[in-house]
């Protein structure tokens, strides 16, 4: 059984909601990213999304764009991202790691080589924002022998027949983008999210995570009520940026923030 599958089985058994924090690899440094991942797991993260920095992050708002820029300025590349995961796995062999990013760094490395390196490092899934099912044949084929899930997104503009198509190729879990917009946007409409999540639920047995626009315990709780998992990115990355100069304070802040989301979800 894959780590992601085991994770969602456990969540279901305990009648819990999964908490999925996102950080950008290499922001503010690869060492601190590794420390933060352990902090996240200890504070109650069920799955960790690790961003592969990219020069042109078209689907991201300013907060995650700047995180990408900071990581690239430090010279963080795809191999560094694999190294972080490899190090993480030395002390944690259960928390699933999902890499999130854009297709070009994978194109350039080569699909098979990327899949092989990701598997060796201990990566469990991939979310590639600009690779919809129509363009993912090659990537899916490369990932399959390594048991790495490609996690697809569904958005408010996804028509009914497309949801079917996406559910057909998806594995791991489904990621519902809660709003039209980029990461870190503000206008979250929980009723609309609930409606769409139920529509998706009628078509698949996969767990459904919801991301974009979740910024605190209150929004996490509201979204947790209608989904299986809650993804939080910009709000976390913002806190990392705020304490870039003091990594001890940063870790404390991150740990208490994730703890507050964990409590909110566990109160459901």
């Amino acid at each position, binding site marked *: 059984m894959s780590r992601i599958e085991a994770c969602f089985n456990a969540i279901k058994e305990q009648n819990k909601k999964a908490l999925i924090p996102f950080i950008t690899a290499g922001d503010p440094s690869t060492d601190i990213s590794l420390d933060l991942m352990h902090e996240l797991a200890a504070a109650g993260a069920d799955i960790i999304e690790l961003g592969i920095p*990219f*020069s*042109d*992050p*078209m*689907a991201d*708002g*300013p907060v995650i*764009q700047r995180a990408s*820029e900071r990581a*690239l300025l430090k010279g963080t*590349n*795809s*191999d560094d991202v694999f190294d972080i995961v490899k190090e993480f796995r030395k002390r944690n062999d259960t928390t699933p790691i999902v890499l999130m990013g*854009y*297709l*070009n*760094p*994978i*194109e*350039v*490395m080569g699909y098979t080589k990327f899949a092989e390196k990701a598997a060796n490092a201990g990566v469990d899934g991939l979310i590639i*924002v*600009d*690779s*919809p099912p*129509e*363009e993912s044949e090659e990537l899916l084929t490369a990932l399959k022998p390594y048991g790495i899930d490609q996690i*697809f*997104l*569904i*958005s*408010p*503009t*996804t*028509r009914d027949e*497309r949801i079917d198509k*996406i559910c057909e190729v998806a594995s791991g879990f489904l990621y519902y*983008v809660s709003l*039209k*917009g*980029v990461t870190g*946007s503000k206008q979250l409409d929980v009723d609309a999210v609930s409606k769409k999540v139920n529509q998706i639920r009628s078509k698949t047995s996969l767990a459904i995570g919801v991301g974009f626009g979740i910024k605190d315990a209150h929004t996490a709780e509201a979204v947790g009520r209608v989904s299986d998992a809650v993804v939080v990115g910009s709000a976390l990355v913002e806190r990392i940026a705020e304490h870039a100069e003091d990594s001890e304070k940063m870790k404390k802040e991150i740990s208490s923030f994730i703890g507050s989301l964990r409590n909110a979800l566990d109160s459901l």
Partner: protein
Amino acid sequence: MPEAIKNTNTESLKSMPDERGHFGPYGGRFVSETLMGPLEELEEAYKKYLNDPEFMAEYEYELKHYVGRPSPLYHAKRWSEELGGAQIYLKREDLNHTGAHKVNNTVGQALLAKRMGKRRIIAETGAGQHGVATATVAARYGMECIVYMGAEDIKRQAINVYRMKLLGATVIPVEAGSKTLKDALNEAMRDWVTNVDDTFYIIGTVAGPHPYPAMVRDFNAIVGREAREQCQEQTGRLPDSIIACIGGGSNAIGLFHTFLDDKEVAIYGVEAAGDGIETGRHAAPLNAGQVGVLHGNRTYLVEDSYGQIIETHSISAGLDYPGVGPEHAWLKDIGRVKYVSATDDEALKAFHDLTLIEGIIPALESSHALAYTSKLAPEMDKDAIIITNLSGRGDKDIHTVASLEGITV
């Protein structure tokens, strides 16, 4: 009706892309899920209206009476004589309203936006030419217009920024990344993904997700159709060579497309070599890039070994882009078009030569095509014919050229 739509003969090089927007391995639709639905909707509208006689009649009316088409095919006799070889004919896209080929496309897309009931127009711009062409049609059709422009480019192109403001557009500076065209495109995509219900994104070049590369080509293909006809009228035959500059590649594909099946016509696309390809400071993905995915399509890119996009360099802001339209990537691989390059210095020399010898001030973008023309023409017979796309006029570049000579205008 554009030939790309009409043609169903699969033997023809003009039948691309396939129904999923691929030109061989290139093109496609690499975007976030939120844009997949809107792109399908756009594709449906584009296919419907480009086969709709009423729509096409309105488009052609606007091109004739508002843009000023057909643009002349001008025999540059003095320059041809000076170079001592082939006869050079210039396709005068510089004489269009707003001063470049860009308006052919913005008129088409704005009419499409109107048909689709979208009243808010967004666009990206580098040098400001596409921004001006978009602001112009938005004014003409009474639409709200937002133009994204890199903060660096805004500094370099103050006149075009003011021109867009006069036309009623809002120009939004983009501070992210390298603060140039590619970042403006990212930002326009972010706007579109947020305001997708009422917004039409007018992309200015033959890049972006399907159907943009095909649609922008079809709206520019009028350039080649006119040139082919005018050449036959004036000389009784087809040209031996045709030449255009390539940034994203919209003026080039506009000229090339009609000629793709004319095997006897040699086709040359000229990329910006900046300080020289060997210096690494260039904007020549077809000559010195590798394949990747950016801005919704697979194509050749200027990027590093980990797939991060590298800042490009060219004296011409309109060519200063790390990617290139996917159809060009395909035409390169199959060998139908030869992609060459011209440096900043070569383009500048051609800029001055054409100005002094023919009394035509060319855009710095078009000057790259002229630079290669001046290399090729002397190697050809005197009765050979070259058509070069003079894609824009150079008024906007006067400050750039003057400052290189230490003159403040």
